[in-house]
């Protein structure tokens, strides 16, 4: 941890939260605002005339289970990392990233089921919001998966042999966040359509 701080040319004493973690929390706040904007737009529109609803495809239930599982694996991988159990860490991180990709695949299947049922982007009902809100969320998961791959390869590169836990903590916090965000969005849609 200290090495990393030095590289960032900060010679302040290390108080409290690491700046990167802090940056992440503020970033999370702004992602929350994006989705708060979209879901409140949904609520405003819902009470306007001409609103149409859609069943939420069942496959999104499976994606919920998948992303919850990935939250567990990322948690375990962080634990493994802290115990310096690199082998276990790497495999768990890989599983997490793969589960993330699987989640995105499920979302795409869900979208195509809707699309094939004749519900496209035309219109202004729940389904159009669903495409956009779930799609935007999937992009955030994709970003997280990419970050996982980055720290995964970092763990392999021989040059970087320090046990710096900060990046792993940052990515895992982010991952839990997109997971929680998904649960919120899923429940929001279940209740509101």
């Amino acid at each position, binding site marked *: 941890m200290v090495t990393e701080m030095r590289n960032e040319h*900060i010679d302040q004493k290390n108080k409290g939260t690491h700046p990167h973690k802090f940056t992440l929390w503020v970033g999370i706040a702004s992602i929350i605002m994006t989705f708060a904007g979209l879901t409140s737009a949904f609520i405003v529109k819902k009470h306007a005339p001409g609103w149409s609803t859609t069943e939420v495809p069942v496959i999104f239930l499976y994606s919920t289970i998948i992303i919850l599982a990935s939250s567990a694996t990322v948690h375990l991988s962080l634990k493994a990392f802290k115990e310096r159990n690199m082998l276990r860490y790497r495999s768990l991180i890989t599983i997490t990233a793969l589960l993330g990709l699987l989640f995105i695949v499920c979302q795409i299947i869900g979208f195509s089921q809707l699309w094939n049922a004749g519900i496209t982007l035309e219109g202004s009902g729940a389904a159009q919001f669903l495409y956009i809100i779930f799609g*935007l969320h999937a992009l955030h998961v994709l970003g997280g998966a990419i970050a996982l791959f980055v720290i995964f390869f970092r763990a392999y590169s021989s040059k970087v042999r320090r046990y710096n836990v900060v990046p792993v903590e940052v990515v895992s916090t982010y991952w839990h966040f997109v997971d929680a965000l998904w649960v919120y969005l899923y429940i929001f849609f279940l209740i509101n359509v």
Partner: protein
Amino acid sequence: MSNDVALHGHPEVVGSHEAHAHHHKETFITKYVFSQDHKMIAKQFLITGMVWAVIGGLMSVLFRLQLGFPDESFPWLEDVLGRWAKGGKISAENYYALITMHGTVLVFFVLTGGLSGTFANFLIPLQIGARDMASPMMNMLSYWFFFGGSIVMISSLFVQTGPFSGGWTAYPPLSALGDASPGSKVGMDLWIISMAMFIISQLLAGLNYISTVLNMRTKGMSMNRLPLTVWALFFTAVLGVLSFPVLLSGVVLLIFDRHAGSSFYLSDIFIASTNTALPNEGGSAILYQHLFWFLGHPEVYIILLPAMGIASEVLSVNARKPIFGYFAMIISMFAITVLAFLVWAHHMFVTGLNPFLGSVFVLLTLMIAVPSAIKVFNWLTTLFKANIRFTPAMLCAIGFVSLFISGGLTGIFLGNSTLDIHLHDTYFVIAHFHIVMGVSAFFGMFAGVYHWFPKMYGRYMNNTLAYIHFWGTIIGAYLIFWPMHYEGFAGMPRRYLDYGIWESFKQFAELNKFISIVAIITFALQFLFLFNFFYSIFKGRKVKDQNPWKANTLEWTTPINPGHGNWPGEIPEVHRWAYDYSKDGRDFIPQTEPIDPNESKH
């Protein structure tokens, strides 16, 4: 120690120990272009902002020509501008494009990017005692996203169908339907791309500012010892990271309406130009307004808060008095930040908003007047009975306070929904926000540039030019915008090409001519500032004194030309707040000086 640094004649300031690790060889590219030094990034924001200010200002000169002289044509304009002024007249389409670009450019690229980009970057690390931002890399990216967004916005001026022309607020349907106007085609797509890049830039920057202020303060620099500039820039960043994402979500829906056939904002539309009825149903343009103004109102404070912070600092230093009500200042800024999120619908009183809801927004809006008034009171009390040094920065800071009072008072008119029914979308609104936000933030910026120029470039700007520029600009600003209040009271609407067709507004023909002439003169006067700025970078009087203004804050403890890393040795420790001026018989006591046991309390 790299040769390069020696060659550039810069003192090697990076300390002996850890800071050395990152101080790689500096090339021209890493030093001036892809720099990660917060001070260089600040200068990049400042100079880009200046270029934008000239472009945006020139646009206003062009449309003021039309407004002041609607019946005349200027053949020379066609020689200069080509298709923008066919026959020496600004066409209706170009007029709308010009006012739209003028608003977009000044609000976002000059007064947001240029103002908080410059001073947050420059002042946060220097005043809190940090070597750089929490993430210099993100900081650099923030500038380059800003720059990229600028290029895209500029490029929209050159496309065949012209730039977007539906107003800086980009309301649908003009912004959602390509067929609605020429500017709604490619121009609008470029507007969206550019704004998306701008938003990313602001988010990267804001994240960085917040974590820097909270995590990287030097020893002893507790939050209640921060200079008010840093507090202001901190609240600005908070507003930005919480409100820009909402604009982003509004724009995402807009993109889908434009290109994917959805109808979030569109309903029951018949387009006359193509003679077609559109199939879109169920959309609501008002929804866009909610999303836009949820950003839009905080945005005006994103512009204003940095200017407030700069003014507080400059006033205190040059009044040689502690800022009056330091904590009241912080709490007011906090209140402004919170309230800024709760008043957006005052821009929508006449959209059919439920009158009961409207009265809630009236109340919340008028509540903002309270912290604003506290701040004004504190500034004036700081000036009261002070031994004022009338430096150019000080004059600009006083000018800022004057403009903020004038414009804040008209805000109270507008904040009453019943009055707003009459005043909405008239020149009264134009006058209100140009005075309270536009010109006053410019004066905050001028104050900041004059005050910190010695720290930025190790030279002074020329005072005589600065005084001429100050007086000319403040008189010009009042002469331009004050009369607009009368036009607004008379009901003269904004955003029209020609008012000659109304019998009732013919009385204003001469006034409009007058406003246009003053606007052109005031615009020309700005080149005095620009000349002064660029000339002084190379030829200005050299700073010999490490602390030329006799100020307490930490930036004046760095070498006259600080290198990357800011302090050559250890970062100084802080022992007191930033405002110990004229205390215990001493003119000023820097923050780095330990508290004397016999010292009086402030």
